[in-house]
């Protein structure tokens, strides 16, 4: 029993409430400072619970399988690390970025609620709490996507709302079926029941609902319609959070947790994962080609990169899982970097169109250098981090003799490089365009997160062995060890 676990959820919720309350008197400084303090505290919490094995917390003192249990194992730790590091840097970025909007209170309050929801998803030990936290994060994100309240933002937010609610409903149906079939919503208890009583066909239906629901949240290809609208419409720090964290936590993480630990992975589900992953990779990359809007290009690239993760998870081999989790971490880094840099560029030049940009490296050298690092990382150029995770996924595909998948992986890497070269050529290099002439380097709170992300991309790439053996392999081993998860939560109850 660990007393620190609930703090991951209740600290940001407290921050969200207190910002709204104190914000009645101080609208400008307090929300920004308090949210930075909250995120710094969460980073400290991660540091305190780092590599302590599987930590449990029984809410209200009620033990599983009857009470609510919070679980932090290595996989949760990896996800918590992604959420809170990206969240912290996005909040720091928002310190200056938010000046263009009027209402600070609701932005930071919603932001912290979204963090609370995602932290909750990462440490939820039962299906229903997973759903509740997923809804908290989703509802906060619907509001944040429409934060600019222009026609484009509201349309994107509404579209996202409808599809997000559909996804949540499907997930809730799945949970209801699981509850009816097994009599429990505690993940470990359900898993134990399903191991002892195999062949329950209701679970197959629940799997279908979960697949659709989580794929909608993750924006995988047949379910991706909301993503290319929602990401560009949101303010830049929110785009970074949506693409860098939200689709991973609510979509991919929840999906792998449910399928690997609760329901148990079957060859059919693996094949669907690989199919959706391959489709997402190719379609996302091809759609990325024609985009003139910088943020829309990044959004399609997110779909494509999530495909890599799904392929790795679908292969199901240890190497595939490690590659997928490593790619999850890397993608959070460089995609947040790219979205934040697009925010800095948009703030200075008032445009997101690649055709109107050009020569940014002369006017905004640090931002340009950071976005070049980001685009080289995402294209898979060594020694940056994207290369290693793509290589591991490729090796995993070869190792499991899926040559078609390996071919798609290489082809998509090539496509990604092509359209990111186009982004660099049109925006960063070339002659200075009309709109870029008046641009200056963004203020320090906006540049600093970009530089830190760029350093992360380089360091993770160079010291990839340390990262893989320190974070990725323990997380992957947890994921592959279903019986170990049940034992560690229920403890022989």
């Amino acid at each position, binding site marked *: 029993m660990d*007393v620190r676990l609930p703090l991951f959820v209740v600290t940001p919720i407290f921050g969200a409430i207190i910002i709204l*309350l104190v914000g009645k008197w101080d609208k400008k400084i307090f929300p920004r400072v308090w949210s930075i303090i909250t995120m710094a505290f969460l980073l400290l919490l991660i540091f305190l619970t780092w590599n302590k094995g599987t930590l449990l917390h029984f809410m209200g003192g009620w033990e599983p399988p009857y009470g609510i249990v919070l679980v932090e194992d290595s996989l949760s730790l990896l996800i918590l690390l992604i959420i809170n590091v990206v969240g912290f840097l996005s909040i720091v970025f928002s310190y200056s970025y938010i000046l263009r909007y009027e209402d600070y209170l609701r932005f930071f309050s919603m932001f912290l609620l979204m963090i609370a929801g995602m932290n909750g998803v990462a440490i939820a030990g039962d299906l229903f709490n997973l759903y509740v936290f997923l809804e908290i994060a989703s509802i906060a994100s619907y509001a944040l996507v429409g934060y600019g309240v222009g026609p484009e933002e509201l349309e994107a937010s509404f579209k996202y709302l409808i599809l997000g609610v559909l996804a949540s409903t499907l997930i809730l149906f799945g949970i209801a079926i699981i509850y009816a079939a097994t009599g429990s919503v505690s993940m470990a208890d359900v898993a134990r029941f399903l191991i002892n009583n195999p062949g329950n066909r209701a679970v197959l239906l629940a799997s279908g609902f979960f697949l659709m629901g989580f794929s909608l949240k993750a924006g995988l290809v047949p379910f991706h319609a909301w993503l290319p609208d929602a990401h560009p419409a949101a303010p830049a720090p929110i785009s970074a959070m949506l693409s860098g964290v939200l689709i991973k936590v609510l979509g991919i993480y929840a999906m792998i947790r449910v399928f690997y630990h609760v329901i148990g992975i079957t060859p059919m589900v693996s094949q669907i994962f690989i199919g959706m992953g391959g489709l997402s990779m190719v379609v996302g990359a091809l759609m990325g080609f024609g985009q003139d809007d910088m943020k829309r290009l990044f959004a399609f690239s997110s779909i494509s990169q999530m495909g890599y993760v799904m392929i790795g998870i679908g292969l199901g081999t240890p190497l595939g899982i490690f590659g997928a989790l490593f790619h999850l971490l890397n993608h959070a880094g460089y995609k947040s970097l790219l979205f934040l840099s697009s925010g800095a560029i948009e703030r200075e030049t008032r445009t997101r169109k690649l055709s109107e940009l050009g020569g940014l490296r002369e006017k905004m050298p640090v931002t340009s250098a950071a976005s070049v690092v980001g685009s080289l990382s995402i294209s898979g150029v060594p020694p940056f981090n994207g290369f290693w995770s793509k290589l591991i996924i490729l090796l995993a595909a070869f190792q499991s003799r899926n040559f078609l998948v390996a071919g798609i992986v290489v082809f998509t890497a090539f496509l990604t490089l092509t359209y990111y070269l186009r982004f660099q050529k049109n925006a960063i290099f070339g002659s200075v365009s009309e709109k870029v002439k008046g641009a200056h380097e963004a203020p320090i709170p906006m540049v600093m997160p970009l530089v830190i992300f760029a350093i992360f991309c380089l360091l993770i790439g160079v010291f990839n062995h340390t990262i893989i053996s320190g974070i990725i392999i323990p997380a992957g081993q947890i994921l592959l060890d279903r019986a170990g998860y049940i034992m560690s939560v229920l403890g022989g109850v």
Partner: protein
Amino acid sequence: MDKHTGMTPIVKMITEVLCGLMLVFGAFIVLYGHITPGGGFPGGVMIALVYILITLAYGRVIVERKVSGIIASVVDDIGALIFWSVGMIGLFVGGSYLFNFLGKGSPFHILSAGTIIINNIAITLKVGMCLYAIFLALAILQRVVIDEPKEEEE
């Protein structure tokens, strides 16, 4: 009281009679939530409905004199804060969030089940004022939508 706003005298009269009863019933649902069906959420909805009913019958201006949007929002936050505090006291006293640190009392009496009654009241404040604030926000939005074309005509 402004006689020219709101609905007909019949509706106003019935509202006047009903409001007190609804508030009492809402409070009953909240306070007995831990021993009978009910609790903070349904009770809070009923209390919010009282304010919404007054808004519909008498108009927004009258009800905002009693409870303005800002007060609703502050009470809403305070409700959430009370729930949070009860959970945190549990964390410090008993080592787990929402730990029941008060005595259990005797069953089927109003002072039983420890912290649940405090949490019910906190949820009532949160839900009741939140729904009322949402309703006020919608009413403001309606005013904006109706007013806008007039400005264009001018």
